[in-house]
């Protein structure tokens, strides 16, 4: 497989797509609403395992994907309930620990989830399994369809009065209350929607990998998503996609560098040094990320933009 460069490119594309989807979902939560979800991987994992268990019973791929997303979304709502009434940093702590608890739980469930041995995921594209190239291509199409729909969904949701309230909550949720809106309701909805999208990514991941185990869902995955979003530009969906691309290229690039560089340490670890340096430089010189926040586009904005001249 490693001998075929096309497979390598397809594999990379699939991962960029999955990471983009995760970054978009974190963007909805953190970039637009200011919710620091440090348990992204938990909802990704919930989606992946639910997908695996559903497809095993013979459910169609779309149903299994939506099933995984729904379970992840419900978990997102559940986790948000105790945390949202407290200060923001508690949400970070609660979600981070939830991610690890869920992973340890799955790891302990030998009979149900395969525990440490993981779980085989029957391929959905049975016709393509014989050819790795076709299988890769089918997955690229699937992942980008799902990510594309998610992108359009978040984009549509954000450029509305609803999206305006979300950004306002990020700035000052007491002022939002004084203007007659209940921030808790919005935050729960956003965490459900964000976790739903992460669950979709999990399903796509499980279907592509055809095998999942608890060690694929370490907290590190969450931090990769955060790096992608902070690099690309929070509150900008294009920034989330760009960040996912950069993270994935760094991740792969350092793995390729392994073949060419002779270092006293594993060159694979170079990526962490590089991410660290990059983030420090970015936060110093361009804290808004590579792309910076996108404007809120509603008819009110457009009316003003075009109407200012003839007033």
């Amino acid at each position, binding site marked *: 497989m490693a001998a075929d460069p096309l497979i390598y490119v397809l594999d990379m594309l699939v991962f960029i797509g999955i990471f983009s989807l995760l970054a978009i979902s974190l963007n909805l939560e953190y970039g637009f609403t200011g919710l620091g979800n440090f348990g992204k991987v938990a909802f990704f994992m919930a989606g992946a395992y639910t997908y695996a268990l559903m497809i095993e019973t013979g459910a169609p791929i779309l149903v299994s994907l939506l099933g995984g997303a729904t379970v992840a979304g419900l978990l997102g709502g559940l986790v948000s309930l105790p945390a949202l009434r407290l200060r923001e940093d508690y949400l970070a702590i609660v979600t981070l620990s939830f991610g690890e608890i869920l992973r340890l739980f799955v790891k302990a469930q030998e009979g149900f989830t395969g525990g440490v041995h993981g779980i085989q995921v029957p391929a959905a594209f049975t016709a393509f399994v014989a050819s790795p190239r076709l299988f890769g291509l089918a997955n690229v199409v699937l992942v980008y369809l799902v990510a594309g729909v998610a992108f359009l969904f978040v984009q*549509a*949701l954000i450029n*509305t*009065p*609803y*999206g*305006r*309230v979300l*950004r*306002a909550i*990020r*700035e*000052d949720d*007491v*002022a*939002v*209350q*004084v*203007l*007659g*809106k*209940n921030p808790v309701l919005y935050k729960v*909805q956003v965490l459900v*929607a964000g976790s739903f999208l992460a669950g979709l990514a999990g399903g796509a991941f499980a279907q592509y990998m055809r095998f999942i185990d608890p060690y694929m869902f370490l907290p590190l995955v969450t931090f990769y998503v955060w790096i992608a979003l902070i690099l690309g530009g929070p509150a900008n969906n294009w920034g989330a996609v760009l960040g996912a691309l950069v993270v994935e290229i760094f991740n792969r690039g350092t793995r390729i560098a392994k073949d060419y560089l002779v270092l006293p340490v594993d060159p694979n670890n170079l990526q962490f040094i590089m991410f660290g340096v990059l983030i420090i430089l970015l936060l110093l010189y361009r804290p808004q990320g590579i792309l910076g*926040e996108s404007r*809120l586009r*509603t*008819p*009110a*904005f457009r*009316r*003003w*933009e075009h109407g*200012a001249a003839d*007033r």
Partner: protein
Amino acid sequence: MALLTVEGITKRFGGLQVLNGVDLTVAEGSLTGLVGPNGSGKTTLFNVIFGLYRPDGGFVRFRDRDITGFPPYKVYQAGLAFAFQLPRLFYRLTVLDNVILAARRQRGESFWAALFARRAWRREERDLAEKAYGILELLEMPHMALKPAGELSGGQRKLLEIGRALMAEPELLLLDEPAAGVSPALALKVYELLARLREKGITIFIIEHRLDLLLNFADRIYLMDKGAIALSGPPAAVTEDPVFYSVYVGEHRKWVS
């Protein structure tokens, strides 16, 4: 008729008794002033009325409806609006968005309507943009509409905070020191604006240290001292009272405005 009734409100922070049985009423259609020394509990009282603090005792009634302990968004929905002393704007949002956020009952603010009732809220948005334009014109900053609120000067921030409260079209408007930190000319403008709002039927309840302005515009003044009402009445009567000087103004002579 009393639009707002505050009865026996008490509030303690640890060992500090900030409100000690406050009783007052705000008549419908009036501009009522609340004055008092720093630390006498004026802002705390406003925070209790608006649900930002839960009182330890007492009642707040609005149109004979008990709103004691309502969360702020429900107090707003009951028909009140509040402008903070230190503006709490959404600094990375545009001035326009800051104003529009205050509008009541926007259909597009619900998750499903935002996605699936686009036609309805898009029409609504255009009307809100017009209304926001009117308010920004009043505040003399339409040219700032698409700038982030964080780029405004201190005085403009105060005005925007008031503008937001106007967009809410409340029945009762609570203002905490609208003239503080604003130039004398602009402060006068703010008060003339408030007088016009009162003519339109909006009731205004206002904390203010600028007596020169307040006494000219207010229908009734409450003087607060050590967490309770020390004095009340029409401005002329209050400024005649020696208590007014011993508690607040600090000089034993008639206040000349």
